[in-house]
């Protein structure tokens, strides 16, 4: 599951104060993302980090996926710098991934989930649907076989 989000900042996860990401839960992730129009940057990043295999492995996963629009808001060079620090890129990307298939309702009930990177991700649904401080903008994309 992939959740599209409005803005993206490639900041790591291990801080009390933390970067934002935006997301959309969804199933077979890589394929769906490749298929969708607005995750091109994400896909490039995942490929650069060598995470394709991980995400293709038996899941299920929920991914809070930043949209291209979100990436585009980042200052020029951000991605370029990140691609030069693969371990960090990996950490950031895996921060956006939660094990298990979680729907919006389930997420709302949980309040906080743990990313496969290891850090907690707070979920807030008091107004709209916010994962960390990012607003979820897109519907859920589900993968047929994993959903």
């Amino acid at each position, binding site marked *: 599951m992939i959740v599209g989000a409005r803005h993206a900042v490639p900041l790591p996860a291990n*801080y009390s104060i933390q970067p934002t990401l935006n997301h959309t839960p969804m199933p077979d992730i890589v394929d769906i993302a490749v298929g969708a129009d607005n995750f091109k940057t994400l896909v490039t990043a995942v490929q650069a980090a060598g995470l394709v295999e991980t995400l293709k492995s038996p899941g299920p996963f929920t991914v809070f996926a930043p949209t291209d629009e979100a990436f585009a808001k980042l*200052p020029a060079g951000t991605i370029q710098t990140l691609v030069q*620090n693969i*371990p960090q890129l990996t*950490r950031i990307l895996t921060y956006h991934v939660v094990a298990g298939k979680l729907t919006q309702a389930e997420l709302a009930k949980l309040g906080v989930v743990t990313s496969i990177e290891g850090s907690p991700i707070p979920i807030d649904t008091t107004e709209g649907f916010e994962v960390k*401080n990012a607003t979820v903008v897109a519907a859920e994309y589900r993968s047929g076989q994993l959903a």
Partner: protein
Amino acid sequence: MTQTISPPSQTLPPSTHEFAEIIHRLEAGGSMLPDTPENLMQIIGIYKAYAVPMDFYWRDLLYIAERVFLNPLPAFKYFLPQEYLDLPNHYAGDGADLRVWRGRATAHPELLEFMEKGEMNRRMPKLLHHLWHDRINMEFAEECMRSMLWHGRDMGWGKFDAYLDSEEYKTNADRAIRAYFKGNPAMLGLYALFPEMFLEQVREMSYYSNLGLFWEVMAPVFFEMSDRYDEGSMTTVPEAMDFLVNGIFAIAGRPIYHHVYVGDECYEIIPKSKGFTWLYEAALPYVEAVFYRTSPFRGTKSYNAQAKQVPDDQKDFHYGILYADVFPVGTAGIPPTLLMQDMLHFLPPYLVDYYKQRCRGEDDMLIQLGITFQRSMYNVTSAVIQALRTALLYPLDDPNPRHLMANRRFFEAQLDRFKRPEARLRDVQRQEYR
């Protein structure tokens, strides 16, 4: 001078914070420093004057961390070899990873000229320039490094400091130490006796590397700002701040590592694969340790344990440039004098003219530029605060009032740190503070 800025959105009532005006300015996308042409001219000029010695600092810090390493008598550690002067900056020049500055990647020409001729404007052997104290005060850079090292554990940023205590780190360091002292039974014997002493030295070296990698980024950022100001494409203080915010984001992910070279062999004490990043492992600790905390200048506070002038907890240390009193600069016991002196050599002409017409002109330029530096660092801190806000909270133009309120809480919490009487935030609001 400062026009009252109303909150950007009518949805929020005005702040009741002591620094409400500044908070409203931040909410409108401004800086803690008022947006005046005079402020802009001053801070850009000082960024440039700061960047030149910084170009030396980062090179030398890396040189010490990578090459000088554990030399017990490093008498010549400030004598940069050509190799490090030519070391291409990763963020300038044609081969840059990300070209922040359009200038060259090797050492800045003004720096090279200064190293060659000095203030005395005479070509002399390096050693004489050094002995005549006609040189960059590298001691200042080391002091910043020590401040990061000493506050490291307590600050809670990142995992860098914790990594220094891991077994993995110790193993890496051990390999490097043994390689470095190969064929030196005396030092190896000492190492066998007091391994912890050597390890602690290596930890310090890791911080050398950390700060060097941090400043490697900042120098081109400042150079670029100066160039843009000169060509007229940077016209307000918020623009200058935004440039810094963007820079912070762009470079945030740059790896922080520590490599040591013994001969041609490279020993990775902190490998890049640990994934330590510039923003969290270098920039934020640097801001906290140097801008906010450091330690009280020995010339201004008593260290007498019974006098209790030095706080018991490291978190209560507030002696950084945002709090420091610049007026005693030039007196005994005031470490920032070293930096001020370094910047004095590289002031752009417009700033020299500006100072000449004020206060005691050339006579007290050291203090005048120190206060300008303080202003400029309030702008940098504003950039950090805005960057954190972007990262952790919501856009300034977010339509949701709850989000805006969260932003305000954040700004208020940040500005609470400047409620201390010694904070200079109030002063930098006034142009007459110089």
